[in-house]
């Protein structure tokens, strides 16, 4: 039987995350899960000041201000896939790869605001549906 441990999200929040070399990546601010067979499965963790702002639901204007005021220093956030996040010690979360290999919270994600991340794919699905209808009509 696979071993199962429990970990509390509210205590993980704000914990400093370091990479494999001990370099600070940022503080853990958000956990993104996906509904998969009636289960909410964690897909990625968002780390950094920008992730905190995202959690608070900062709109586009707020994001622009953040970039203006804080520059690159405040406007950074990283996406940590679940596979590279080591939560064996929940008080000291660790990433098992170097910080430079982590994906930054992308510009498209940054401007997405509080909209669900599935939005682009939904849009794509809509586009596909439309083309299917066109085929039916023709």
């Amino acid at each position, binding site marked *: 039987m*696979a*071993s*199962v*441990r*429990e*970990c*509390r*999200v*509210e*205590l*993980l*929040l704000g914990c400093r995350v370091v990479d494999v070399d001990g370099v600070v990546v940022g503080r853990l*601010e*958000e*956990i*993104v*899960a*996906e*509904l998969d067979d*009636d*289960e*909410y*499965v*964690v*897909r990625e963790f968002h780390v950094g000041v920008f992730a905190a702002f*995202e*959690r608070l*639901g900062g709109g586009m204007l707020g994001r622009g201000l953040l970039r203006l005021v804080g520059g690159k220093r405040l406007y950074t956030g990283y996406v940590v896939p*679940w*596979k590279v996040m080591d*939560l064996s010690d929940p008080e000291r979360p660790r990433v098992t790869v170097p910080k430079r290999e982590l994906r930054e919270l992308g510009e498209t994600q940054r401007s997405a605001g*509080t909209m*669900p*991340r*599935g939005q682009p794919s939904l849009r794509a699905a809509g586009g596909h549906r439309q083309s299917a209808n066109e085929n039916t009509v023709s």
Partner: protein
Amino acid sequence: MEFRVVHDLLDKPVLDDERRNIGRVDGVVLELRRGAAPRVAAFEIGGRVWARRLGPRMARWVEWMGKRWPAVANGVTRIAMRDVRHVGITVSVKCDGRRLPTLAWEQWLRRRVIGRIPGA
């Protein structure tokens, strides 16, 4: 469907079957599985969970209160994610809130204080 655990779930008001407010999501439990992605297993409601977020000293104090006045310092209610009907501005769950320990304090207050006020 994507779901942001902190933004969409933590601190949201929880409503039961009868749309009674039974508290707020004070904590979320992740299940860490070897070789598989972590799973959001449940969330918890209760003063003790909330106190833990404020630090170990507050957690110890609330635990002490719970031992001294069990009816007042209520226990922890854990609700599995499979019992969640809907997550939006509020979190709707499939359960009867009257049976949960989260409302023990309110029931105690109603019985001992509010109920004794004339005209209450």
